[in-house]
C-alpha cells in the first residue's frame, strides 16, 4: 500500500469552481533505465487516474513514462451537490489505490 494524498474543500457554495488536488507516491519507472547490474529496470508506472463525484466520472487521465515520480494532478470542478469525491489510480500491474473526500455544498 502506498500513500495517496487528496485535497478537496470541505465546504463550497453551489456552482462554485473548486480546485481538487491528488498526489500518489509512485516510482513511475520508465522501463528505459538500466540498473547497476546492467539489466533494464522493468517499467512500472501509474497508467490511469479517475476521479468521480457522487459516483459520476468528472476527470480522468492517462499517464505515460514521461511523467515524473509521485505524480501530482490538480484540476477544477463545479460544486454541484454534497457528496463523496473518489480517486482511483491504476498501475500497469493492475494494482489500484483509492482515496476519497467528502464535500458539503450549500
Amino acid at each position, binding site marked *: 500500500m502506498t*500513500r495517496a*494524498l*487528496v*485535497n478537496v474543500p470541505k465546504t463550497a457554495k453551489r456552482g462554485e469552481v473548486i480546485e481538487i*488536488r491528488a*498526489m500518489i*507516491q509512485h516510482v513511475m519507472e520508465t522501463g528505459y533505465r538500466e540498473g547497476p547490474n546492467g539489466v533494464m529496470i522493468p517499467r512500472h508506472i501509474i497508467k490511469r487516474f479517475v476521479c468521480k463525484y457522487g459516483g459520476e466520472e468528472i476527470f480522468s487521465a492517462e499517464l505515460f513514462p514521461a511523467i515524473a*515520480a*509521485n505524480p*501530482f494532478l490538480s484540476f477544477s470542478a463545479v460544486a454541484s451537490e454534497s457528496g463523496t469525491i473518489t480517486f482511483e489510480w491504476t498501475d500497469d500491474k493492475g494494482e489500484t489505490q483509492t482515496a476519497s473526500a467528502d464535500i458539503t455544498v450549500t
Partner: protein
Amino acid sequence: MTLVEANSTYVACPFSNAVIAGLRELDQQKFGYDRLRGNGIDVVHRKVTAVDTKSRSVRLDDGKQLAYDRLVVAPGIDLRFDAIPGYTEASAEAMPHAWKAGEQTLLLRRQLEAMNDGGVVVMSAPANPFRCPPGPYERASLIAHYLKTHKPRSKLILLDAKDAFSKQKLFEAAWKELYPGMIEWVSLSFGGQVTRVEPATRTFITEFGTHKADVANVIPPQRAAAVAAIAGVADQTGWCPVDPVTFESRLQPGIHVLGDAIIAGGMPKSAFAANSQARVCAAAVVDLLRERTPASPKLINTCYSLVAPDYGISIAGVYQPANGLLTDVPGAGGVSPMEAPKSFRAQEATYADAWFKTITRGVFG
C-alpha cells in the same frame, strides 16, 4: 582597493542556528571591518545605488562615484517576499525567517523561549537552490535539542518543498538516535509544499493540509540580493551566471560575482564555498589586470552541521570548471560515515568550531 559594505558590523550566518537554540550568543557572530583598513584597503560603509558599466564606475548613496578597473560583488541573498502568498516582510515578525543572522535570529530564539512545553514548532524549507543547503536540517536538529532539554513534550514539523536534502541519511539517523519522535519531516511527495501562510494565526497551508504552529519559522525561496540587479549581473532566474575560472559575470564584462548569489553548478551556497571562490577570483583579477591568462582552478567546500552541541557531521567537495560550470571532481570529497562512535561525532563538532574561528579570523583579522 575599496571595500564598499552597507553594514558596519557583519553578523555571521554559520553557527547562528546555535544562537537560536540558546547555545551561543549573537555577539559571538559579530565581526567588524577595522582590521581590514590599512593594508591598501579603504572601507566605505555605504550602499551602492548604481553601477555604470560603460564608464566603469559605482555610485554610492552619498552621491560619491568610485571608478573601477575590475568590480567584484558578493551580493549574498534576498529573501523573496513574493514567493509564498501571505508571507511578506511584515509577516517575518510573526513567522521569522532567521535566514539572515541578526535581529531575526534573536526573534526566533525568543519565540522558542516563550513557547509552552507541549507546543508545536513548524518550519518550512524551500526548493533548491537556496543559501546553506544543510541549514534547515541543522536548525531543526538544534531546535529539537533545545526542546528536548527544556520543553520535552514539544514537537517540530519540517515542511519541505523537496524530496531529498543534504546529508539526509546522517541527519535522519541522528534524529532517530537523539530526538526520537520529536522531528517530523514532511517531504514534497508527502504534501510538504507550502502554498500559503496566515501569519496572524501562524498557520501553514500546504497542497494537502494545514499546520498551525506555536512557533513558526518560514525559510522562503531566495534570489541574489538587490545589488546584483543594480549591477545587472542577475539573470531571469534571480541568480548570477559567472565564468567558473575567473568568476567574471557572463552578463557584464569587468564585473566579478561571488558567493551565494552565483549559479555555481555543483558548488553549494555556503560561507566556505564563497571564501574559496573569493580566493580564486582575487588571483584571477590580479592575472587579468596584468594581462595574464588565469589558470583553471580547483575549489574546496566543507559544510559542518551540528545535530547537537557535541554531535557534528560534515560534507566536503572539490570542484573544477567543466562545461562552463563548477563541477564535482569525481572521487574527491565525501560525507561523514554513517556508522561512527560518539567520540567521532564530538570531534567533528570541535572541527566545526575550529573552522568557524579560522574562517572569521582569516576574513576579518
